[in-house]
């Protein structure tokens, strides 16, 4: 029995060593990140000791434990290839009983830099509230329980989702993971800034709830025991232990299921996406007929279904909203920051054909005149506007409301519309003139050798959009000046709308013959991914 545990631990170490031997860069990256993580984990210990003298110290340690556990739960989903021993289906051909195997896998999960760093971080967390002999004794139990819960959580989540992780949907999810991290880090950054100004006491209600959520409940138990509330401490420890048992049982169940049922991924699904298609039937009838409607429908479906496109859209939507709102909340923004929404979403018009990948041949075969190219580009622009127009208007209104600058609304909205039109125009032209491939796997958005092209397309395009907007900006400045400036500025809204629409139409008209004349070249450029 222990033999198996030893074997699996050795297997894990060999896998780790094998992975590092693959390339020098990978080994260096591993060493550097391990050293940094360990240094950080060690450095936080004295910090936590200092924190234990602060009034809200245990609030931080409880919250930190919960965040740590969250990380353990999500990491295997986002980095499914990180630990091959996480995938029990690899061991399915071996004659192993579930219980010894689970013990072996659980122990092997405790081996590695990640668990060591977690141990040190958790040590810091239990240090903060620990007082007196009973408190310290509880801290030791809490430390072990919390670490086991973290590790078991990762195993249980991975086992429950192993089919997902090795399937197409899992790979789609991995593409979105970078996005979650990017937006999540923005939110954390913002929250940290709020905490910096408002004090740790703000976290108190969150920590009070987390005190009863394992494994943070184990850290909370240390505090309860140190304060003499032994009953509560015992309950919190028991809750953590119960969670550990539940996780292990759940993990055992999914593992048994995994190892005794065949992989169904190659079976023919009779009605896999039936519900999905039926649902879209009603909406699509609202779109125009012919090419325009077909293009709009396809574009909108891709926004939702294609992980790369979805990631780009969600980033644009999030950044377009977060930047103006964050600055407005801190009263450091300008009303014109609302234009970020239009600008970020307008970026989606760039490299339209690159988003098609080599499937662009299907489009190329149906374009034989500038007219058809114009309809194609216009359909894509309309699909984009369907989302962008209401969103940009919403962000503008929200921003103006937060800054309480209602008289500015018409001119900011007008500016957003003019900018959007300019972005569409420049984007359409750049799509035809500077197409580049978007790799479908991984987090990269440009294939090697086309980075220069992408930079020209995006930054040249943005510069062009700025130039195209210049007359309208000049008009805004001119109208806003003078004594009766505010009275006339409502004019900027209709003028901005007409200007934006005019520039966009002109851009599409100029881009269409270029696209129609360069179809083979565009296909070659977008097929490299």
């Amino acid at each position, binding site marked *: 029995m222990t033999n198996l545990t030893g074997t699996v631990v050795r297997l894990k170490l060999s896998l780790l060593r094998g992975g590092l031997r693959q390339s020098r860069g990978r080994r260096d990256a591993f060493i550097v990140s391990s050293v940094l993580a360990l240094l950080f984990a060690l450095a936080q210990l004295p910090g936590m000791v200092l924190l234990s003298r602060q009034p809200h110290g245990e609030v931080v340690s409880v919250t930190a434990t919960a965040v740590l556990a969250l990380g353990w739960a999500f990491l295997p989903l986002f980095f499914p290839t990180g630990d091959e021993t996480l995938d029990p289906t690899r061991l399915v051909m071996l004659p192993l009983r579930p219980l010894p195997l689970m013990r072996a896998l659980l122990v092997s999960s405790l081996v590695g830099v990640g668990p060591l760093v977690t141990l040190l971080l958790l040590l810091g967390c239990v240090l903060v509230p620990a007082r007196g002999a009973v408190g310290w004794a509880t801290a030791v139990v809490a430390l072990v329980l919390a670490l086991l819960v973290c590790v078991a959580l990762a195993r249980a989540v991975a086992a429950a989702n192993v089919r997902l992780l090795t399937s*197409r949907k899992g790979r789609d999810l991995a593409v979105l993971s970078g996005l979650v991290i990017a937006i999540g880090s923005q939110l954390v950054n913002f929250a940290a800034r709020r905490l910096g100004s408002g004090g740790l006491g703000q976290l108190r209600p969150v920590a009070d709830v987390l005190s009863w959520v394992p494994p943070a409940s184990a850290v909370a138990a240390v505090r309860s025991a140190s304060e003499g509330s032994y009953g509560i401490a015992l309950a919190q420890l028991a809750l953590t232990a119960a969670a550990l048992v539940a996780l292990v049982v759940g993990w055992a169940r999914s593992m048994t299921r995994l190892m005794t049922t065949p992989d169904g991924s190659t079976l*023919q*699904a*009779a*009605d*896999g*996406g*039936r519900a*999905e*298609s039926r649902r879209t039937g009603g909406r699509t009838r609202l779109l125009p*007929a*012919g*090419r325009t*409607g*077909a*293009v709009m*429908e*396809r574009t909108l*479906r*891709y926004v939702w*279904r*294609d992980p790369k496109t979805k990631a780009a859209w969600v980033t644009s939507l999030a950044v377009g909203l977060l930047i103006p709102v964050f600055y407005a909340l801190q009263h450091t923004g300008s009303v014109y920051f609302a234009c970020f929404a239009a600008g970020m979403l307008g970026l989606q018009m760039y490299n339209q054909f690159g988003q*098609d*990948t*080599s*499937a662009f*041949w*299907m*489009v*190329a*075969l*149906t*374009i*034989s*005149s500038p007219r058809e190219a114009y309809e194609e580009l216009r359909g894509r622009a309309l699909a984009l506007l369907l989302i962008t127009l209401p969103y940009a208007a919403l962000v503008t209104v929200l921003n103006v409301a937060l800054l309480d600058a209602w008289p500015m609304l018409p001119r900011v909205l007008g500016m957003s519309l003019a900018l959007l039109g300019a972005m569409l125009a420049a984007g359409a032209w750049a799509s035809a003139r500077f197409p580049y491939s978007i790799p479908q796997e991984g987090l990269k958005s440009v294939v090697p050798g086309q980075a220069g092209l992408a930079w020209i397309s995006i930054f040249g395009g943005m510069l062009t959009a700025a130039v195209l907007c210049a007359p309208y900006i000049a008009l805004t400045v001119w109208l806003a000046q003078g004594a009766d400036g505010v009275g006339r500025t409502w004019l900027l809204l209709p003028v901005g709308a007409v200007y934006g629409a005019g520039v966009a139409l002109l851009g599409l008209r100029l881009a269409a013959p270029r696209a129609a004349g360069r*179809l*083979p*070249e565009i*296909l*070659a450029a977008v*097929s490299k991914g």
Partner: protein
Amino acid sequence: MTNAAVRIRGLWKRFGEQVAVGGIDLELPAGKFIGLVGPNGAGKTTTLSMVTGLLRPDEGTVEVVGHDVWRDPVAVKARIGVLPEGLRLFERLSGRELLGYTGRLRGLPGAEVDKRATQLLDVLDLAGSQHKLVVDYSTGMRKKIGLAAALLHNPEVLFLDEPFEGVDPVSAQTIRGVLERYTASGATVVFSSHVMELVESLCDWVAVLAAGRIRAAGPLAEVRGAHPTLQDAFLELVGANGRQAGSDLDWLGGGAPR
């Protein structure tokens, strides 16, 4: 009306130093099942891409049913159906959605697209998976949905690049049935392959391509000549007949003592 479905004159394509297609002159008769055969790297895909307007030739002209591919794309693109090899489909659409999208890009009315799509999905045995995303399709299913998309607008000439590559025997038989029915109505199919048995059993007209040049072209019987099979004729034409993989591997064989 000319009776050549495709007329190629002096077609050249170079990729850097390498000549992919080195001066092809070829006339493909209308209403035939035409096989374009050649070893890997012979230039089949490059030729088909240039004929269908997906790749710009360095030199030469291509006419499809009497219209120049590069000067009169309106007439040509409406009359051809294409199934390329190595290019993606819009894989995040379901099979049915892909057909609906293609048909409407082709300018067919919505109701007509729906009718044709239903029939094609039925005939090609895809009705059960029509609502599954194409990205989850197997190779055979992808070829079949690609074929359906190429046939949807009832083209006069159909170009298929390796339509049977990686396709299981059941799907291959389905594809074959549809293509035979299509040519029986007077339409032209041009397809590339390196499986000689397949070409021999399907085609009535063959062009042999090697190293970017046409080695032989004509009715099947003519190209085969005195050889017992097309395979033998082909090996001689591409100059691979002398290669015998025999004597050097005299140690290779079952039951040899260890």
